[in-house]
């Protein structure tokens, strides 16, 4: 495959849904006019993301989904800087799924891509829009555009003899061709970018008026409760509708091949009806499937040969010539997403049209998938998107929408399907179970001269994008193919190993898995070399940005200072999603007790910071998310069924377990890197390394809390 073909493939992937591991398209542009945003000639629609009205209203059509990561605020800041309006000045519109509307900009949100993707095109669109408005004012005044300047939605003549608002000139601007290639501001002139901006969606969320998908109510709507085959791959054998229909408020029972739903006036009645049903299931081929039968082939795979994903030098020769070898196998558990807002969707199917109301990370892909599932043309499907009560990759899949459509096709009214927490945990698409085997040969100076890494697990890319899967999962090997450290000979292999457990994207994606393995292993090499973990890493780095974050985290954490008995510090460094991050975790780990994370110090260089306040929030939250997974997160299978069901047995961090997180942001003028995944990816290995420092125990199989003292 040529480089160009690879890039086109990735562009296609960006547009069709998943973003994880995808390189970013360079030079993408917005369509010049907002298709589908017709204001009847009464507005200036310079680009798909903006509409300016004569009354001064500036509407921002968000091309990305807000799921807590602050993208609404960050997008408003990108545009505000070059348009010369306040970030809070926008009227916000969440547009429906539409693969054409935003041109090359993907409406999908994930893989820490939003700022990397939007940084150039949105600022350019905003600058060109500002220039169009300034030129319109200049025409009115009969002066040159260079004799005018824009500030806070107002165009001033430089001699301050006149001023016009954006609203006053917007229709005139709309009548002229849009300027292109307007010069962007120098970072020295930034008034918005790089400054702390409080969240623009904060007030609605604090007042409780923010609307999530689960809050949608339509006239005549019925609410459905769902039970899917408890065993993966099972089928519904029989269902006696009578018991459910006898429950007050229950209106209909819908039996599907592998699930049954009860439709009622409200969710409680639907749940009561479902509880009365006692459906019978054919358990199918996976009825005897247990966790060990899933895990063993994955672990076995990494001790044999795999498909080459990367090779540099002659690893076998270099390994032979090395003075000492170190080997380790790491295992990372299946994870559920467990977003606070359980799965839900409202669908109304009328025969020749289907309307969807849901919170999704992929509104345009959902639209296509609903069209494909119903046989309707794409134009007959409308997908209304909402704020998400957490995404974490779960809402990069359309399964919940398609399930709702299956049910709505058998009802004559709009149907709201709500997953119980138990269904949400047991019928997730899980972060894959992975095994990583690493072997390194150390030279005379104790530095690695040979490095062999083999990854095995489920391939999400192969399922979603079989056309682009050429034997290696490009997402899964991210962070293992390229590592921050200099090793003369290095080989990476991959083995795809599937099971009946469905898998999908999960915050941190492939890079997270790589980070745990690589950053645990480099720590083991430091131990073998009898070297300090920070100093050992530092000696292997070439990239000054990586050195800078490592040094900054170590300095701010007081690396190496004397700690009380039972405490330890651990470090991890990543360069992923175009962001450099180092974390130092301080932990207290007493024998037979759950480790207690005391403090996490994070140094990050994510290029030009867009919203430092948002970066700190992503660091604090991502660290907590990663600690939940590393300490507790574990989905297991017995008898073909997921054994966990709710927050009592799928534990996540609570406030009493949450550490103090300190964020230190490196000032930079480089293009922005991603911030959604890195904090989650880096904290796991930093924690495991801290636990080793505190206890001398190296936990290589997660979750850590369960495996530390066994």
């Amino acid at each position: 495959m040529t480089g160009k073909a690879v890039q086109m493939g990735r562009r296609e992937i960006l547009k069709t849904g998943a973003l994880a591991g995808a390189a970013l398209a360079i030079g993408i542009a917005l369509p010049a006019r907002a298709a589908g945003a017709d204001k009847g000639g009464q507005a200036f629609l310079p680009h798909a993301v903006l509409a300016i009205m004569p009354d001064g209203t500036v509407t921002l059509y968000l091309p990305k989904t807000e799921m807590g990561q602050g993208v609404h605020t960050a997008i408003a800041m990108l545009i505000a800087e070059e348009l010369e309006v306040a970030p809070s000045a926008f009227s916000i519109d969440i547009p429906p799924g539409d693969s054409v509307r935003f041109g090359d900009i993907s409406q999908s949100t994930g893989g820490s891509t939003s700022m990397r993707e939007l940084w150039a095109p949105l600022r350019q669109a905003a600058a060109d829009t500002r220039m169009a408005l300034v030129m319109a004012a200049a025409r009115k005044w009969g002066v040159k555009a260079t004799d005018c300047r824009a500030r806070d939605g107002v165009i001033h003549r430089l001699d301050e003899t006149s001023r016009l608002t954006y609203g006053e000139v917007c229709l005139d601007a709309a009548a002229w061709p849009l300027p292109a290639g307007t010069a962007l501001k120098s970072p020295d002139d930034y008034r918005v970018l790089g400054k702390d901006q409080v969240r623009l969606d904060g007030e609605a969320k604090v007042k409780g008026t923010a609307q999530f998908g689960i809050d949608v109510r339509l006239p005549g709507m019925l609410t459905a409760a769902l039970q899917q085959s408890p065993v993966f791959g099972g089928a519904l054998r029989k269902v006696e509708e009578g018991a459910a229909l006898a429950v007050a408020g229950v209106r209909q029972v819908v039996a599907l091949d592998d699930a049954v739903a009860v439709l009622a006036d409200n969710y409680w009645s639907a749940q009561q009806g479902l509880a009365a049903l006692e459906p019978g299931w054919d358990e199918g081929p996976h009825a005897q499937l247990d966790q060990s039968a899933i895990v063993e082939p994955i672990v076995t795979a990494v001790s044999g040969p795999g498909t080459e994903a990367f090779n540099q030098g002659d690893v076998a020769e270099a390994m032979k010539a090395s003075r000492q070898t170190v080997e380790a196998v790491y295992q990372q558990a299946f994870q559920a997403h467990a977003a606070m807002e359980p799965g839900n969707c409202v669908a109304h199917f009328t025969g020749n049209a289907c309307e969807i109301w849901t919170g999704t990370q992929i509104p345009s892909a959902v639209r296509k998938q609903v069209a494909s599932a119903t046989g309707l043309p794409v134009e007959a499907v409308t997908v209304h998107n909402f704020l998400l009560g957490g995404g974490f990759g779960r809402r990069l899949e359309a399964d919940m929408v398609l399930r709702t459509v299956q049910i709505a096709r058998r009802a004559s009214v709009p149907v709201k399907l709500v997953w119980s927490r138990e269904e949400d945990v047991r019928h997730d698409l899980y972060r894959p179970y992975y095994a990583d085997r690493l072997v390194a040969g150390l030279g005379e100076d104790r530095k690695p001269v040979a490095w062999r890494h083999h990854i095995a697990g489920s391939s999400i890319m192969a399922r979603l994008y079989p056309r682009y899967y050429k034997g290696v999962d490009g997402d899964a090997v991210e962070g293992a193919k390229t590592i921050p450290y200099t090793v003369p000979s290095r080989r990476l292999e991959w083995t795809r190993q599937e099971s009946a457990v469905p898998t999908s994207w999960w915050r941190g994606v492939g890079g997270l898995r790589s980070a745990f393995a690589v950053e645990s292993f480099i720590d083991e090499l430091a131990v073998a070399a009898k070297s300090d973990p920070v100093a050992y890493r530092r000696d292997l780095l070439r990239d000054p940005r990586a050195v800078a974050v490592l040094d900054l985290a170590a300095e701010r954490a007081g690396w190496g200072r004397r700690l009380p008995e039972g405490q330890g510090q651990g470090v991890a460094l990543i360069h992923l999603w175009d962001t450099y991050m180092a974390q130092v975790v301080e932990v207290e780990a007493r024998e037979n007790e759950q480790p207690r994370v005391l403090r996490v110090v994070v140094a990050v260089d994510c290029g030009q910071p867009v919203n430092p306040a948002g970066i700190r929030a992503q660091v604090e939250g991502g660290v907590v998310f990663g600690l939940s997974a590393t300490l507790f997160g574990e989905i297991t299978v017995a008898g073909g069924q997921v054994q966990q069901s709710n927050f009592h047995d799928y534990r996540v961090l609570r406030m009493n377990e949450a550490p103090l997180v300190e964020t230190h942001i490196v000032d930079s003028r480089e293009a922005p890197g991603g911030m959604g995944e890195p904090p989650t990816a880096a904290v796991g290995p930093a924690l495991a390394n801290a636990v080793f420092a505190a206890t001398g125990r190296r936990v290589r199989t997660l979750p850590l809390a369960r495996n530390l003292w066994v």
Partner: protein
Amino acid sequence: MDYRLRIDGQDHAVSVPEDMPLLWVLRDVLGLTGTKFGCGAGLCGACTVHLDGAAARSCLTPVSMATGKEIVTIAGLSSTRVGRAVQGAWLAQDVVQCGYCQPGQMLSAAALLTDNSDPSDDEIDAGMSGNICRCGTYQRIRAAIRHAADELSA
């Protein structure tokens, strides 16, 4: 059964089964969707409301136990001095991320501060550990509760 409910200072009449949880009466019968469904088992706190000033998990509170009591949801939280201080502190500390758990967090925080106007860190942890936030805003929630406590004692 017919019930009269006093919610955020307004009287409502509903006809629902006596064991129907208050959460679903609020959300699905009355259309008051500010109170959130998270787990249905009292494990996450997303559905927290006040009953006569005390925090209660509405997903496990039968409507029959809520009648005759003063029910406060996120929509009515600003009617009390403590509630206003909590919401103001949440904004000042820029707490929210996805925001889905935050109505429950703020209701729990207001109940905590009503009982204890100057909670220690351990008391904050104890009072708030029933409320899960998957976005991980705990550090800012702690700061916001201290902020609100300072505001209330000023």
